[in-house]
C-alpha cells in the first residue's frame, strides 16, 4: 500500500498561482488526451487491456443500453439531445474516456435529465435504471438538478452487460439536499468507466453512496466542487470485489471556496484470487480559502489470499486557514481480537467471521435511508460472501 502524498504549500505572494497537480486541466476535445499507455498517474492502477478498448476510442458503438426513469411527484425527467446547453456546464472532462462519452452519448438516445422542482420535498426516491443488453461499447450522460431548497433521493442503478462509459452531473442548488445512491450491480463481464461531477451550492448538502459489486472492471471517479460557501458533501462508498474483479474508486473533492465541508468514507472487502481494489482519495484545499473541514477514510478487508489493494490518499493544501483536514487508510484482515471476543461467547468460528464481515458492511449500508435498497444490497453482499465459504 502506498503512503499518502502530502503537498502543503505556503501562501504565495509573487502573483504566480500554486498549481495543484491534482487539478488536471480538462477538455471536451477527445484528441486533447493521448491514448493512455498505463504509465500515467491516473491510469497506472487500471488494467487497460481489460477496458476492451474503451480508453482508445475506437469507433465501435455496438452496445445497446436502455435507460428507464421512475420519478415520484416533484421530480420530472426528459431526454436531451447532444448539444443541449444545459449539459456539460459542471465540468470539463479530465480524461479521454470522459471526453469520449460526452462526444458520443448522443448516438445512444441522448442524455437523461432529471429535475427536482424548487422547494419540493420528495420522500420517495427517483430511480434511474441503466441496463446493458449486450457486451458492446456504449456511452451515456445523466444530469440531475436539485433546484433551490428541494430535497430528494436519486437511485442510479447499473445492471446487465456492457462496455460502458458515462458522465453524470449533479447540480445541488442553494439550500438543496440531494442524496444519490449509485449501485454498480453489473453482470460479471461488464466494463464501466463512470464520472460523477457534482457542484454543491450555498448551504447545500450532497450525499452519495457509491456501491460497486458487479462487473469485470468498474472505475468510478466522483468529483465534487462548490459554487458558494456553506456546502457540505459526504461521499460514502462500498465495494465487494470478488475473484478477478477490478473495482477502482477515485474521488476528488475540490474545496475551491471557503467554509465548505467534506467527508469521504470508502470501505471495501476483497475476496478471491485476483480481486483488486483501488481507492484514490484526492482533496484540494484551494488558495485563499478558509474554514475548510475535510476528512477522508478508506478501509479494506482482505478475506482471502491472492487479493490486492492500492489505497492512496492525496491531500493538497494551499492555505493556512484550514479548520480540519485529515485522512486515514487501513487495509488488513479480519481482526482476530474481534473474532476471539465472539468465540469466547461460544459462537463458532465461521459464524463469528460472518458476523464481523456483515457488521463491517452493515455499518455503511445502515446509513442508506431507503430500506428496500438496504436489504437488497445486504442480500447481495451475503450472496458474494457465500461464494467463499
Amino acid at each position, binding site marked *: 500500500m502506498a503512503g499518502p502524498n502530502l503537498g502543503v504549500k505556503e501562501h504565495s505572494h509573487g502573483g504566480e498561482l500554486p498549481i495543484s497537480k491534482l487539478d488536471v486541466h480538462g477538455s471536451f476535445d477527445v484528441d486533447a488526451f493521448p491514448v493512455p499507455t498505463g504509465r500515467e498517474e491516473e491510469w497506472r492502477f487500471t488494467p487497460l487491456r481489460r477496458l476492451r478498448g474503451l480508453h482508445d476510442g475506437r469507433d465501435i458503438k455496438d452496445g445497446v443500453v436502455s435507460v428507464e426513469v421512475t420519478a415520484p411527484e416533484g421530480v420530472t425527467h426528459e431526454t436531451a439531445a447532444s448539444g443541449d446547453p444545459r449539459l456539460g456546464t459542471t465540468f470539463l472532462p479530465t480524461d479521454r474516456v470522459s471526453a469520449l462519452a460526452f462526444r458520443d452519448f448522443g448516438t445512444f438516445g441522448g442524455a437523461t435529465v432529471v429535475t427536482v422542482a424548487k422547494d419540493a420535498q420528495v420522500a420517495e426516491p427517483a430511480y434511474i435504471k441503466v441496463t446493458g443488453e449486450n457486451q458492446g461499447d456504449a456511452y451515456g450522460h445523466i444530469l440531475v438538478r436539485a433546484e433551490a431548497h428541494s430535497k430528494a433521493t436519486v437511485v442510479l442503478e447499473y445492471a446487465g452487460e456492457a462496455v460502458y462509459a458515462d458522465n453524470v452531473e449533479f447540480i445541488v442548488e442553494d439550500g438543496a439536499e440531494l442524496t444519490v445512491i449509485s449501485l454498480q450491480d453489473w453482470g460479471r463481464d461488464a466494463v464501466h468507466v463512470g464520472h460523477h461531477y457534482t457542484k454543491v451550492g450555498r448551504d447545500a448538502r450532497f450525499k452519495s453512496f457509491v456501491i460497486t459489486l458487479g462487473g469485470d472492471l468498474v472505475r468510478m471517479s466522483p468529483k465534487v466542487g462548490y459554487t458558494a460557501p456553506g456546502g457540505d458533501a459526504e461521499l460514502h462508498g462500498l465495494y465487494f470485489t470478488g475473484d478477478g474483479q477490478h473495482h477502482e474508486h477515485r474521488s476528488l473533492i475540490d474545496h475551491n471556496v471557503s467554509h465548505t465541508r467534506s467527508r469521504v468514507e470508502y470501505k471495501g472487502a476483497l475476496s478471491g484470487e485476483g480481486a483488486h481494489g483501488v481507492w484514490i482519495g484526492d482533496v484540494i484545499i484551494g488558495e485563499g480559502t478558509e474554514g475548510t473541514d475535510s476528512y477522508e477514510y478508506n478501509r479494506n478487508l482482505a478475506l482471502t489470499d491472492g487479493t490486492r489493494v492500492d489505497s492512496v490518499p492525496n491531500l493538497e493544501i494551499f492555505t493556512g486557514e484550514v479548520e480540519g483536514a485529515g485522512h486515514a487508510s487501513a487495509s488488513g484482515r479480519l481482526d482476530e481480537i474481534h473474532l476471539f*471476543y465472539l468465540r469466547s461467547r*461460544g459462537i*463458532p468460528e465461521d459464524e463469528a467471521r460472518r458476523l464481523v464481515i456483515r457488521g463491517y458492511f*452493515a455499518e455503511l449500508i445502515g446509513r442508506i435511508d431507503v430500506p428496500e435498497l438496504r436489504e437488497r444490497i445486504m442480500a447481495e453482499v451475503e450472496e458474494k460472501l457465500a461464494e467463499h465459504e
Partner: protein
Amino acid sequence: MTKFEIRGVRADVLIGADERQEILKGVDLTIDSGQTHAIMGPNGSGKSTLAYAIAGHPKYEITAGEVLLDGENVLEMSVDERARAGLFLAMQYPVEVPGVSMSNFLRSSVTAVRGEAPKLRQFSKELQGTMKDLSIEASFAARGVNEGFSGGEKKRHEILQLELLKPKMAILDETDSGLDVDALKVVSEGINRAKANSDVGIMLITHYTRILNYVKPDFVHVFADGRIAESGGPELADRLENEGYERFVKAGAEQ
C-alpha cells in the same frame, strides 16, 4: 458438582513474530462449583494473562500444565468449544465489535451455548428482564457490541452475558474497576444472582476489597510474579488492603 482445576500452568505472552515472554510460572488452583475465589495481586503480575490464556486468547500460549473442567482438558478445545463447555471470561477490557448489534450477538451466543435457538419472544423477554436488572437501557440492544460504551457500561454488559450464558465456571477480570458506587452495587447483585441461580464457580480478579463486601469470597489468593504466592480465607483480603503487596513483590524479586 463441577470441578475446575488449574495444574502447573505456565504461559507466554506472544509479543512479536519471534518474541515471547514467560508470564505465568506454574499456577495451581482448584475451584469447586459454588465457590468464589478472589485473586488479588500487583499490576503486571499476570492475573489477566491467566484469565486470557484459559479462555484461549490468541496472544497467549500455554507452554506447560493443564486446565481441567470436570476432568476434561480445556486446552485441547477451541476458544468457542471452551465457552460451550461452560467456561466464561468477563474481560478487563471488553472488545468493541463494530457493526454487530448487541441483540444479534447475544442471540447467536445464547443459541451456541444452549445448543438450540431460544424462542424469539421468550428470549427477548429474558433479555429485557436481565437488562433491566442491570440498569441497562433497552436502546443498547440495537447498538454495536461494546461500540462506544463507557467503561462501566461495558462491565455491565459482561455481567449481562454471564447471566444469560449461565456458565459452570466464570472468571471475572477486574469487573469492579472503573465502576461508580451505584454501578458496583448493580454489577455485584448480578454476580450474586448468577451464584444464586446456578452452581457457578467464580474466580474474581480484583484490586479492591470493596467488591468483596458484596460478593463474599470463600478463598483469597495472592498472585505475584506469575504464580499464587499465598492463599487464605476472606481475612487475607483485609490484610492485603492494609499492608499492600510489598512482602510478595520482594519475595518474588529475591528468587
